[in-house]
């Protein structure tokens, strides 16, 4: 192999690819990036057998060839280089030699024959604006479970509802649902993408714009964008029927300014106990909405927040971290909080934003 390409592009490809290399020791080749030079391009490939990625970058190919090098070595070396220059990659014996104007390096190569192929998904396909997909997944993915015991909920669930793409994630203590309006999408009854994988996918797509094409079958999904192809396995399972736990009626509704709620929560953080418990109290008659946190070892704190209140008096204890989490997905200035009664779930929404719903379960102590 003997090629020349831009450092900038190779750097991005290597860094994105490196994150998807396999870190397990059973098959050491999985920690490598496979470089394939042919025609007028260089393909950088990586996989951990759950996720796979291929990034194609333009290159001046003098001699075609294939080789595998350690992903972390290559990406760390490239990240130290200035992007606005060209780099030559040349295979010398069992090493890869890299050279820019000022710096040179050689990296040991591995036999590439054992490098797995990346599945090409052949199934239903649709296209959608990349930003919409990224925003939908980002709005919910933090709510997914981090444990692998129930793979169905350590995932983001995607389905279509008339002309909305709906993304849902829950770890059974809270649940986030985001809808984005898209057109020309086939009926998707439900895809469950593992959380780990979709977070990597979103990271590699974040900040870009354009059209994302998606292909999926029962077991596999692929995303192609520009020069990048990513594929992930899917969870073959049933996502819990979450709609039944989103209540239709509310007893109390509160509207507060986002900044004031955030400020009050910040103060409450200082006083929460080890379970992060805070208590919301609504006293409609006295027009009080207050947040209280108490730790027998530290002290106690209460903030009254100016709010528009209606309904019945209510007191609910919540995990503060779950409340704070939802701010990243609510962009509106005002937040509406719906209560369903004492010690019942609480629903957070941005005012005038029906696309995002966040439900937090009460703490029971």
């Amino acid at each position, binding site marked *: 192999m003997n090629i020349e390409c831009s450092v900038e592009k190779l750097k991005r490809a290597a860094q994105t690819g490196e994150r998807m290399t396999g870190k397990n020791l*059973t098959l050491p080749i999985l920690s490598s990036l496979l470089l394939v030079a042919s025609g007028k391009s260089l393909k950088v490939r990586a996989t951990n057998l759950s996720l796979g990625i291929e990034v194609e970058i333009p290159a001046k190919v003098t001699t075609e060839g294939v080789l595998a090098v350690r992903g972390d070595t290559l990406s760390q070396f490239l990240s130290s280089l200035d992007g606005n220059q060209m780099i030559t990659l040349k295979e010398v014996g069992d090493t890869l030699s890299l050279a820019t104007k000022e710096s040179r390096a050689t990296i040991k190569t591995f036999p590439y024959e054992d490098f797995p*192929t990346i*599945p090409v998904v052949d199934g239903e396909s649709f296209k959608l604006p990349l930003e919409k997909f990224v925003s939908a997944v980002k709005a919910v993915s933090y709510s997914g479970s981090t444990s692998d015991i129930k793979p169905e909920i350590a995932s983001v669930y995607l389905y279509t509802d008339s002309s909305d793409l709906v993304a849902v994630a829950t770890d059974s203590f809270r649940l986030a649902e985001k809808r984005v309006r898209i057109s020309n999408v086939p009926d998707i009854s439900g895809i469950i993408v593992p959380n780990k994988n979709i977070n990597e996918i979103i990271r590699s797509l974040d900040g870009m714009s354009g059209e994302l094409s998606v292909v999926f079958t029962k077991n596999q999904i692929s995303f192609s964008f520009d020069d990048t192809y990513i594929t992930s396995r899917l969870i073959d399972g049933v996502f819990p029927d979450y709609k039944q736990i989103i209540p239709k009626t509310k007893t109390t509704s509160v509207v507060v300014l986002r900044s004031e709620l955030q400020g009050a929560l910040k103060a409450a953080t200082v006083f929460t106990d080890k379970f992060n418990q805070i208590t919301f109290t609504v006293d409609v008659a006295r027009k009080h909405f207050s947040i209280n946190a108490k730790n027998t070892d530290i002290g106690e704190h209460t903030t009254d927040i100016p709010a528009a209140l209606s309904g019945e008096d209510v007191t609910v204890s919540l995990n503060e971290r779950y409340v704070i989490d939802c701010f990243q997905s609510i962009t509106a200035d005002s937040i509406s909080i719906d209560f369903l009664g004492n010690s019942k779930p609480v629903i957070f929404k941005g005012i005038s934003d029906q696309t995002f719903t966040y439900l937090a379960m009460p703490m029971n102590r």
Partner: protein
Amino acid sequence: MLITFGKFSTLTETYYNALTMINTDTASVWNTCLKEIELEVSKANFSTWFRHTSLVKEDAGIITVGVPNEFVRDWLLNKYNKLITKVLLNALENNVRGVEYVIVKHDMKPKTDENGGLSMMSTPSRELPLADLYINKEDNLNPRYTFDSFIVGPFNELGYAAAQAIIARPGQSYNPFFIYGNTGLGKTHLIQAIGNTIKIKHPAKKVHYITLEKFAMDYINAVHNNKANTFKEKYRKYDVLIIDDIQFISKMEKTQEELFHLFNAFYENGKQIVFSSDKHPNYITGLEARLHSRFSQGMIVDISEPDFESRVAILRAKAANHQNFITPEIISAIAESVEGNIRELEGSLNSVVCHAELKGRVPSIADVKNLLKNNVRPKKNVSVAEVVKIVAGFYSIEENLIYDKTRRKEIVKARQMIMYILREMFNVSYPLIGQKLGGKDHTTVIHSCEKIKNDLKHDPTIVSELEQLKIMFK
């Protein structure tokens, strides 16, 4: 608190059907194939690509191999197809026309046991009930306990009637309502049903159910956090308070005091209080006199053990969901062999149902009897010496004095009581009683029994002593 979802069915019918087609033969074929492949490829490759594979089916020479995901499928197809075909040809004596790969869910792979055969896969046939999750967090009541599922028999009709009166006019008819009886006779069911029904009939009334243990914990926490006042307010705002297992209050002095004040507040405002206990208030040790008298102020009702007919009725109601397996004969067999405790009755029924479901047929009466042998508590057999020991202990006198010829008043009384108990509760013959208690004549025994019988008519202390002793023999 967890979000709980009603259904978590993960098994896809098709896979299950496909998997059941495998016989031990093909599974062991694949095991030998794997052993051969293991020799051909490196260890790393084997464990990455072959460890989670299985043979799904063999159909007219087309072998289907199950793999965990698409990466593995592609790789086996591209790289190892030849090898796999070769070893399969060897193993199946050229009976192979092609190999296909399908993705099988990870946990769906047939597990092989030590002998290389397929072990039975356990599939949950039915959703398990999540009873605990249905408890209403506000009033702690379990909606499952209603009067619809409450069987009324002679053993509990008084309690039932009183409960109905309370529901009609909470706080006015019988306040407090104190119900006692042995464990597993339906006290909790009855008092929770009172709460649930009051909730429906008088929606404005705030009902709260709590076990004494929780009440005490709540009190301790309140004191610990300097919130004794909030504790008082919290309980005073309810209209109906139901406290279960009140007997545990013995020795909790401060909790007793708090309960005393709470009781007064409730009683004065005409709010209903319901208690349950496993003993009559007289026998709750360490109960302060002022609480004791207050417990006795309203209505004290006991629930005794169900008679045979009631047991049959209870079993019939409980077996309503399993009618395929449980015949009336089985029900009467269970009712005959299990006496007393309703919980044990239910346990025995459950084990019969479980047995029947496992076997998939209606069990015979012999089967049922056999099963129940392990479940049923043997009937208590008390020896004379034991009765003597318990009664002597009760009156705090030395055991051997009973057998002596002494005529000291307190010993005579204990001795007569022993005779009466042996005769009335255990049906021992007069001569035998006399013989066992130091060679007394049977007429002495008859006289003793008559004397106690007479005393019982006008001496309340003897009555209460006998009551207490009876409990000790249960």
